[in-house]
């Protein structure tokens, strides 16, 4: 729950203060085109001029340097990292909105009853933002199932299909090999998986309506 913790910190300041601006900064990659984000990170992962390998070189860890996007072992993780970088701020802002909706008097009475900061997070904040946790889980799951842009911009599905995702597979098979029947079957599978995931997550997060 690192992200939840981060936004819990931000709650304590008025929006527009330093913490509000930080939230604005973390959110900013979500409004940039994924293609541009992908190209930017391709340069960071670049084997010779890339920031990452240069940093490792600088720290004397040459043995860890590699061709991040061309190595079948690391390519998918590199893309996963960039997605987290791009959308962590979005999830954070959703949590922030949920936490700010909790009435302050609940926190005050908990404090009067002697609850420590950890107890407050565990027994008040987390249960109260359960609906937001659900929304975030659904958004991230469905978003990952529909994932395409960064894969297309950074690796094109390679090396040797190690970073192929459902959407990129649909795209390649339907619109580059023109296998329409196969493409349609894949589309149906994607649709069913998306619906199934949404239903399962909704059932896993059944919440009683809170009155406050």
């Amino acid at each position, binding site marked *: 729950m690192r992200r939840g913790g981060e936004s819990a910190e931000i709650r304590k300041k008025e929006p527009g203060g330093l913490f509000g601006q930080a939230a604005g*900064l973390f959110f900013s990659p979500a409004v940039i085109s*994924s293609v541009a984000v992908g*190209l930017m990170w391709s*340069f960071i992962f670049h084997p010779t001029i890339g920031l990452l390998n240069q940093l490792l070189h600088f720290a004397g860890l040459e043995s860890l340097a590699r061709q991040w996007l061309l190595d079948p072992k690391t390519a998918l993780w590199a893309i996963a990292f960039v997605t987290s970088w791009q959308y962590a701020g979005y999830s954070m802002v959703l949590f922030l*909105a949920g936490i700010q909706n909790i009435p302050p008097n609940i926190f005050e009475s908990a404090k009067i009853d002697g609850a420590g900061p950890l107890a407050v997070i565990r027994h008040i904040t987390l249960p109260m933002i359960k609906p937001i946790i659900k929304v975030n889980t659904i958004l991230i799951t469905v978003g990952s199932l529909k994932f395409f842009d960064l894969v297309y911009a950074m690796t094109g599905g390679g090396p040797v299909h190690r970073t192929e995702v459902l959407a990129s597979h649909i795209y390649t098979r*339907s619109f580059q090999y023109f296998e329409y029947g196969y493409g349609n079957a894949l589309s149906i599978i994607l649709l069913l998986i998306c619906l199934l995931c949404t239903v399962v997550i909704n059932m896993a997060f059944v919440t009683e309506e809170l009155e406050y």
Partner: protein
Amino acid sequence: MNIGRKTDAPLLKHALLALFAIPYVYPIFWLLVNSFKTTEEIFRDPWGLPRQFQWSNYPEAWVTGKIGHYFLNSVLVTGGALAVLILLASMAAFAIARMRWRLSGVVLGLFTIGMMIPIHATLLPLFMFFSRLSLTNSRLALVFLYAAFGLPVAILILANFFRSFPREIEEAAAMDGCSMAMLFWKITLPMSRAALFTVLIFSFMNIWNELLVALVFISDVDRMTLPVGLMNFKGQYATNYAPLLAATILVIIPGIIVYSMFNNRIIEGMTAGALKG
């Protein structure tokens, strides 16, 4: 809201936030600095400041690399789609929320189902359908597709908003001889500026950055939108990094500028869109 004030160490928190901020600020800064070098200098010295500013990378990306052209296409497609989307969504939402007819609930339900269908799953059937109409490879196709895919969320947000209006306003207007159309244009729409703005921002962000649909439907270089165009640019300038960096900056910067002007409204709009969707 002073939970745990005793254990607070503001300095530590600020340091932590600063640490988190580095991976968000530095890559863009690095990109910007290197976009003013020659490709050869990028390879020789990727960290330092440019010895001599190569402004020429930018005109090359904008004109020769056609980024300016792609930008204009994106403006046309996004503008057209938003106009169609806002008009249709507000009229549909008005009919669903403010008029009494038997199927209004069913229609809202249909749009809500539409929200759960991922655009990728409908791509192939839509492509075949548009081929029959000879509408592939045209910006008009994108306008219609984007408008259609934006409808569900837009209708839901607007219908929720319209429902909150008191009936008395409409009754008073009707008493004064206001027709249904005038009621919509002169009263409902001006009262919903905030909700319309939310829908506009949320849809704009989705449409402006959309890649897959544009990639499938547009193959002619002259009609490509910005994300597709940038990929095309990457194909042409694969090893010529300096103009490629400049092109990436040109795509990122307008987004950052718009974002810094309206960041609170954008965050608000995108959160509302996600929470209701």
